[in-house]
């Protein structure tokens, strides 16, 4: 599988996972000059929170867990991206947070999704 294809497959798996949990997907692959946010979604009612998700996908553990590849540098960029996106919105967003989703694609069977909430602090 090619590199970009792995990434796309991971995002698909992550979106599936979120939708299953009842999340509302707001935007996918939102880009600006700073970079890209993989998924922007909203947690289910009654207390919705806007969540910026970074998805990291790998096909094996040879280079460590997918989540380990999310560095503080990536998180710092994600924080900036989040603020940029929020700034472009006409309405006020009271609460938001940043999550990380690690996807491990096995050659057989379902992708393994690990969702860690609130990694942005």
């Amino acid at each position, binding site marked *: 599988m090619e590199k970009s294809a792995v990434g796309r497959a991971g995002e698909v798996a992550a979106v599936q996972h979120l939708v299953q949990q009842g999340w509302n997907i707001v935007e996918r692959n939102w880009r600006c000059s700073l970079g890209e946010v993989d998924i922007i979604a909203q947690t289910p009612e009654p207390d919705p929170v806007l969540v910026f998700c970074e998805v990291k996908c790998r096909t094996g553990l040879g280079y460590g867990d997918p*989540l*380990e590849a*999310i560095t503080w540098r990536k998180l710092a960029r994600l924080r900036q991206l989040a603020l940029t996106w929020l700034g472009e919105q006409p309405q006020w967003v009271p609460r938001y947070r940043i999550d990380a989703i690690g996807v491990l694609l096995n050659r057989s069977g379902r992708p393994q999704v*690990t969702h*860690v909430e*609130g*990694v942005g602090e």
Partner: protein
Amino acid sequence: MSTGRAFSVALVGVEGAIVEVEAALGGGLPRMVIVGLADAALGEARERCRAAVHSQGLGWPTQLVTVNLSPATLPKAGSHYDLAIVTSVCAAADRFDSEVLDRMVLLGELGLDGRVRSVRGLLPALLAAVAAGFSTAVVPACQLGEARLVEGLTIWGVDDLLDLVAVLVGDPPAQVVPATDEPAGSAESGKDLIDVVGQLEAKWAVEVAAAGRHHIFLHGPPGVGKTLLAERLPGLLPDLDQSEALEVSAIHSLAGLPLHDGLVRRPPYADPHHSASLASIVGGGARMALPGSISRAHRGVLFLDEAPEFSPRVIEALRVPLESGRVVLGRAMVHAVYPASFQLVLAANPCPCGNAGTRGAECRCAPMAVRRYTERISGPILDRVDIHHHLAPMSRTYLKAAQSSGESTAAVAARVAEARARQQRRLAQHGWRTNGEVPGPALRRLLPLPRGVELLDEAVSRGRLSARGVDKVIRLSWTIADLAGADLPNRDHLHTALAMRRGEQLGEVSRARA
């Protein structure tokens, strides 16, 4: 979020404090955080533990791992927490029944390949664990011999992480029992008193010093045998008793010296070079204060050869330990106390060229230079030294005559042992072992005064003896009497003691011995 805990020991000086190592999993991206005032070596446990667990084929949790070392305000240093950290993380991941951890301390450093390496200060750490009521200890297998010196603990020696896991799941490996034979008597370095030619008076002075644990200052021109004599002093001392051996071994363990052969039974000997720094002598280090030479010489001999060449600051730093027998190293966060009850042996030349005051030799130093040289060892230090002895070079005829008349270390050590036994019988009820450690007031109140003590009044009234000097002379006279087999020092003994204290040539010595 799941948690686990294990116990280890932090060392402050030779005192150990139990440290609870807690691990929590989850709540963030996978990485490891260690909190609880860890120093650099302990902070790096992060990398060591992870690599070790991976290389042994055990899984490391892919979650945020938070490790807390409690009490959080006590600074912790060193690498021996690795085993406890790995164990608490595994406990948090529910790898085994964590009940076993409640009465168990774990000490050991991990290699990247999962091997368990030796640690400093195992002996004092385990002693602290016993005192705190723990029943089991996991230690590096290579230090089983040292760990077994502590009574009252079930000890597991582990070679690698797989061994550790086996112990924790209740399927321990067969224990390797290292030979714990007592070391074969006094395995001395082969330095015998018989090698020193002549210098009968100096040998006598060293014998008295050994018998009563008195501090001694040997001075004289180069090549008369000051160093030879000083090096042979430890060989004259009797073996350490059980409690002394434990104290000395604990310090050896802290200093990272191996204790494969069981407890240290011979009095230690330290002879630092005169370029030694203050911290190397009294002990030091920024966060974890390590024992210095004076503590390594605890219950043994500290020999400062070429004493005036030492930095005056270093020499002066000996004042308080000489009196109190311990050293308190204060740091911002902790106060470490190390025992430092050593016997001080100083050796010095009389001047830079070494010949001042020697008959038949020419001193080339300016008078001021001689004076400055002798003043480098201050009055307060010299006042604490019991025996001052000047060694004169020998004439050729004397050399010939003396060649055959040397005594061996064994012969002198037997006399010293006998004198020590007399002291024990007299002093044990008060809790002292040797004349050298009896405090001044006790000397005058608890023990009978030597006969002819008015000899000292005269010396004091003439200003030739300080108040401390009086006590020193009385202690010396007791030792001389013990060596002579007398029950109470008499006027002769006192006279000899006074002369030895003042560094006079001892015509009386031969009389006292006869």
